[in-house]
């Protein structure tokens, strides 16, 4: 009884992740500011990818070390990259 439920939940997570991907990335070609797009991308790429990884984790629980490592490094490095891009792209006047 559990297997169909786990399968359904894993496809649900992957579907939500894909939704975040398309929703956050759709703003990229628009004429908005760098920081706005960065915020949208951090939602899309970080949260969306983590939802997809959660779906994959449910599909392959025996590979949990690698997938948990991917979730952790995704969460840390995407967030830090977003901070560095925001810091470097804003004009010098606001920082020095």
């Amino acid at each position, binding site marked *: 009884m559990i297997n169909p439920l786990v399968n359904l939940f894993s496809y649900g997570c992957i579907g939500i992740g894909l939704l975040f*991907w398309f929703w956050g*990335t759709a703003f990229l070609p628009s004429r908005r500011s760098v920081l706005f797009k960065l915020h949208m991308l951090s939602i899309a*790429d970080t949260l969306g990818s983590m939802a997809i990884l959660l779906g994959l984790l449910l599909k392959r629980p025996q590979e949990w070390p*690698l*997938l948990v490592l991917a979730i952790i*490094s*995704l969460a840390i*490095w995407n967030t*830090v990259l977003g901070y560095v*891009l925001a810091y470097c792209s804003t004009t010098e006047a606001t920082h020095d």
Partner: protein
Amino acid sequence: MSWILIAMILALLIPIYEACKDENIWQKMLAFASIASKTAMISLFVSVLRDDWMLGAVAVIILSVGNAGLMLLAHVIKRVSQA
């Protein structure tokens, strides 16, 4: 599962289009950052499909080391634009 892979590749095309189109260096950096994490996710997804965990290890390495490279590049661009 392959339709999910096709949808992921379609989502990858958007930042590739943005990276080609936009002239502003920071908009291009955003697009490259998005391409990097999306390609790593796609290769991780393919590794689950094929049950080939060498590919999965490569994807996790891309997720951590690839972003570090982009961070260094962002600082170099900032210094060059200040000079």
